[in-house]
């Protein structure tokens, strides 16, 4: 599988402040989430990928090319920056048309592309005559996404694209991103809202303090974490009986019984062998199960474990 982004020994320093510290990783095709707290280096990495910075050291290849000062590559990349980045005194269609031409599109097609994209990001037509400075944050976010998609990029890089959007807007943007990914666009998206990333992406890159701590799918990340203890919560009619059966089977690391709520919370030693025996153990206990939840399979739990 050809990586979309390939970094070797990549570092970025701002004076004495470290943005990225000697990281090596690959980002594969598809929808990939960048995960990390503030200051982890997500935006630095995104700016390196989109050629905004020249790396302090190391090498970076995006779609097989060096992104620094490379307009030919930038024609293939769409970038949606994190902060406010729209000129307030412009109307969206002329501004987007100009950007389309900057990406190499002929003027005859640029306006049509701008209008198509504004429709696609669902910016209501009655607002098109307004200046960008008069837009709400959600509307500006849509225009920002439109400019990134304008030239049909092969690779889309989005820095916190859901910021400022209401839940419906987030759903719509997520839908557009999934649609673009299904059409073959490779997407890297960063967000501090992990639940959204989790719903959107299959693969993740976890950054912390300028280092890449882990990368891969959720399952791959989980298996990479040393001493990972799967944690489950089972609501059933006889939680004590279930606890005894699990204890006797020797699969438990610890448990917490909440008899009032008919709930047993427990951590297992070896998730893979546990899940192989899990149905048999339930059958042995003869309990009636109402609900089973695995809280620590969420991206947030994995992230907390990885960064701990």
């Amino acid at each position, binding site marked *: 599988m050809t990586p979309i982004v390939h970094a070797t020994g990549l570092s970025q320093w701002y004076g004495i402040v470290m943005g990225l510290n000697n990281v090596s990783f690959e980002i594969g095709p598809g929808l990939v989430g960048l995960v990390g707290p503030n200051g982890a280096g997500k935006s630095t990495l995104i700016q390196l990928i989109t050629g905004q910075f020249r790396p302090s050291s190391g090498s970076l290849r995006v779609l097989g090319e060096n992104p620094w000062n490379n307009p*030919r590559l930038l024609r293939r990349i769409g970038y949606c920056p994190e902060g406010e980045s*729209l000129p307030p005194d412009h109307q969206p269609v002329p501004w987007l048309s100009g950007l389309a031409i900057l990406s190499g599109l002929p003027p005859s*097609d640029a306006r049509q592309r701008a209008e198509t994209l504004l429709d696609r990001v669902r910016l209501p037509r009655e607002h098109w005559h307004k200046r960008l400075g008069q837009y709400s944050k959600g509307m500006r976010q849509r225009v920002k996404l439109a400019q990134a998609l304008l030239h049909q990029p092969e690779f889309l890089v989005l820095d916190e694209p859901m910021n400022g959007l209401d839940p419906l807007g987030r759903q719509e943007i997520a839908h557009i991103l999934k649609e673009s990914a299904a059409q073959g666009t490779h997407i890297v998206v960063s967000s501090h809202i992990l639940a959204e990333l989790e719903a959107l992406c299959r693969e993740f890159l976890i950054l912390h303090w300028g280092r890449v701590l882990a990368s891969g799918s959720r399952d791959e990340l989980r298996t990479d974490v040393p001493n990972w203890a799967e944690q489950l919560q089972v609501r059933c009619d006889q939680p004590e009986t279930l606890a005894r059966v699990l204890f006797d089977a020797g699969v438990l690391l610890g448990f917490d019984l909440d008899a009032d709520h008919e709930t047993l919370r427990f951590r297992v030693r070896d998730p893979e062998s546990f899940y192989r025996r899990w149905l048999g153990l339930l059958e042995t206990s003869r309990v009636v199960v109402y609900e089973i939840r695995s809280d620590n399979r969420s991206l947030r739990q994995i992230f907390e474990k990885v960064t701990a």
Partner: protein
Amino acid sequence: MALRDISYRHWQGRHEGIWHRRRVIVEAGLQACLQNRWMRYLVSFCWLTTLVQVSVLFAVGQFLVADSIIVQWAAHLNPQLQTFVRGFTAWLDQHPEISVGTVQNLLFYRYATLLMPTALLTVALAIPHLVSRDLSSNAIVIYASKAVTRLDYAIGKAGVALGLLSLTWLGPVATAWFVGNLLAPDWSFFWHSRHALGHSLALGIVLMLFLTVLGLGVSAVSPREKATVGLFVALWLVGNAFVPLGALSQPWLKHLSFQYNLSQAALAIFQPDRDLATARDQVPVLGDMLRRSRRRPDSPWLERSPQKPWPALIAFAAVATTIFQRRTRPE
């Protein structure tokens, strides 16, 4: 995970070249600047002055035609004057290099330097649209992510300033020369006034390039429009305040004014003192009058400085270029 096809499937249509993309930056900037009504007033004013200059050139040209309205009108004032005017015009007709070349060089020197403050005002009005607004809205990040380099961005923004200065300085000056000589009594005026045009174009190159670089640098100093415009006006006015001080004490102080340096550049290029000397020495009657009124210029602005203006202009431009480079560099 299944392998995906990552072959390039960008825009299927025709691609425009880099100069086309640079032109888009220029056009967008010019449109934004001309949306400012003060800028439109300024452009209109500059072209009105073209009419005045053309009228002056037409009137001067009429002195060389014996039966022109102006000559006849002057002759009717006084019979003695009639003899003088007829003799004078006959002399001027025989010496076109002075009557046309020298006179037009002096006239275009005055016109070019009179339009200089409007060129500075143009830059002051354009400054917010050059870099400041891109910095304040952070749109520069989006532009930098498109298929243009920082050099392309700089070329595009320089094109905006050069375009505006063409509208308010070079265009009026060049048009005045062309139309003024078109209305002249003889086609040879174009040839005899070639030095005036050459000097105007040379000063235009210096002035426009310098003001473009200075404007870009000042515009990049801050994302706040008022701060950048204020800085430019302060540089302009405070610099000019050093000129009389320099005349009284240290002459180098005068070079802290970029307008003074540009005026010195105009003096160096047009060399009006040489033209005046020619008139004094060669033009009958008028030369005597000029000799009698010979005195040093009152204003330090009109006096040739022993120091050349070029090092100061280059220093200003170097500082502005450094600021522009640093401020438009992604951080």
